[in-house]
C-alpha cells in the first residue's frame, strides 16, 4: 500500500478497524465523552446535532445500555443519561445555551455525590 494513497487498495477497507483502533474502541470512547456536557455543547455549536445521520448514530449507540457492553463503561451514569437526553429533540435544540449545559453538569455532579453525607 502506497503511503500517498495513489494505488487502489487490494481489498475493501475493514469497517471495524480505523487508524490503529478497533471500531468498538472508538465508539466506546465517543459515547463516554458524551457524558461531558461541554462536549455536547461543542457538538451542538458545530451543528452536529442537526444532522439526522448523526442522530440516528446516537440512537444506534444505545446498545451500550446492554449489560454485556455496559461493563466497559467507566462513566456509566452520566453516559447513559446523556444518551437518553440526546434522543429528545428539545434537548438537542437547547444544548447550545450555556445555562442548560451548566444545569446538566450540576445535575451530573449532584447525582454522583448523592450518596455522600453532608
Amino acid at each position, binding site marked *: 500500500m502506497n503511503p500517498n494513497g495513489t494505488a487502489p487498495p487490494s481489498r475493501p477497507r475493514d469497517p471495524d478497524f480505523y487508524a490503529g*483502533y478497533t471500531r468498538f474502541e472508538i465508539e466506546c470512547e465517543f459515547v463516554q*465523552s458524551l*457524558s*461531558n456536557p*461541554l462536549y455536547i455543547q461543542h*457538538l451542538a455549536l458545530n451543528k452536529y446535532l442537526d444532522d439526522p445521520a448523526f442522530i440516528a448514530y446516537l440512537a444506534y449507540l444505545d446498545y451500550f445500555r446492554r449489560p454485556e457492553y455496559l461493563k466497559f463503561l467507566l462513566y456509566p451514569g452520566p453516559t447513559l443519561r446523556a444518551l437518553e437526553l440526546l434522543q429528545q429533540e428539545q434537548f438537542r435544540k437547547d444544548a447550545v445555551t450555556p445555562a442548560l449545559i451548566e444545569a446538566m453538569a*450540576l445535575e451530573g*455532579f449532584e447525582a454522583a455525590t448523592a450518596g455522600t453525607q453532608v
Partner: protein
Amino acid sequence: MLSQFQASYRRMDQSLQRLTDSIAAYNPSTAAADELVAADDALNEDLTTLIQHQRNVLRIEELKRIAQDNDDRIKNHFRAVAELRKELAAIPSMNTNASARSVSIDELLSYARFISPTTLPPTFRKQDVPAQSLSRTAAAESQPHTANGIATPPLGTHDDAQPGNTARINGSNIGTRALKEEEKAWLDSVASLPFVPWPEQPTIANGALGQIQLMLEQGKDPATLLSPAERVEEEERRRVEEEAERAEEEEKRRRRVEVFDAAGGRKRGREEESDVFDPDA
C-alpha cells in the same frame, strides 16, 4: 374408700363391744381379744392406705399444676412464633420483577472497583463544595485537588481541536489567583468543578478520537494503518511476491544458460557463465 373405713370401724366397734360384754359377763374370751387386735390391725392398715391415698391426691394435684404450666408455656411460644411470622411478612419485600438478571458477586465487585475512581474521589466531603457554581469563594479553591483522579492541566493544551470548550482553571495555578474576583467568576463556569464524574477535555483529546484528529491535521490518512489481520495478509502477500520474483530470476538464469549452451558448445560442461567478451567464441 369411705365405706371401707366404715366397715373397719364397725368391725372394731363390734369386737370391742363383744370383748367388753364378755368381760362384763365374767367370761373373758381370748377370742374376743384376738378379734379386737385383728380389728385394730385392720384399722391401721386402713389408715396407711388412707395416707397413701392422700399422698396420691397431692401428687396428682402437683402433676396437674405442672401440666398446666407446660400448656401455658407452649401457648406463649406459639403466640410468639405467630407474632414473629407476622413481623416477617410485614417486612417490605424487594420488587423482583424489575430485573431478573443475576450477576455474580465477583463480577459486581470487580465492576464497582472499575468505576470507583471515576465515580467519586476518595476524600470527597460534600460540605467542601458550594452549591452555586458562579459565586465561588477562595475557600472553594483549597479543595483536595490531589484527590482528583483526573487532573486538569493549565490553559492552552489541545484547545484548537475543540473550539467550543470554555477555558479550564486549576485552582493552584498562580495566574488565576492574580485575577480579579469577577474575572474569576466569569472564567469559573461549570468547568471548574474540582471533581466531575465524566472525562475531562484533555482526557478526551488523548484518546482514540483525539489521535485520529491529530493524524488528520498532520495530513496522514488514518485508513493506511492496517489492522493486525490485514498486516498478516500484507506480509503474506509480500512474501509471495518475493518468492515469485526469485522464481523469475531463477528462470532467467536458466534460460541464459540454455541459450549459451545452444549458441556454442565450447563452454559446455562449464556451469558458470561469464559476461566477459571472448573473441574466440
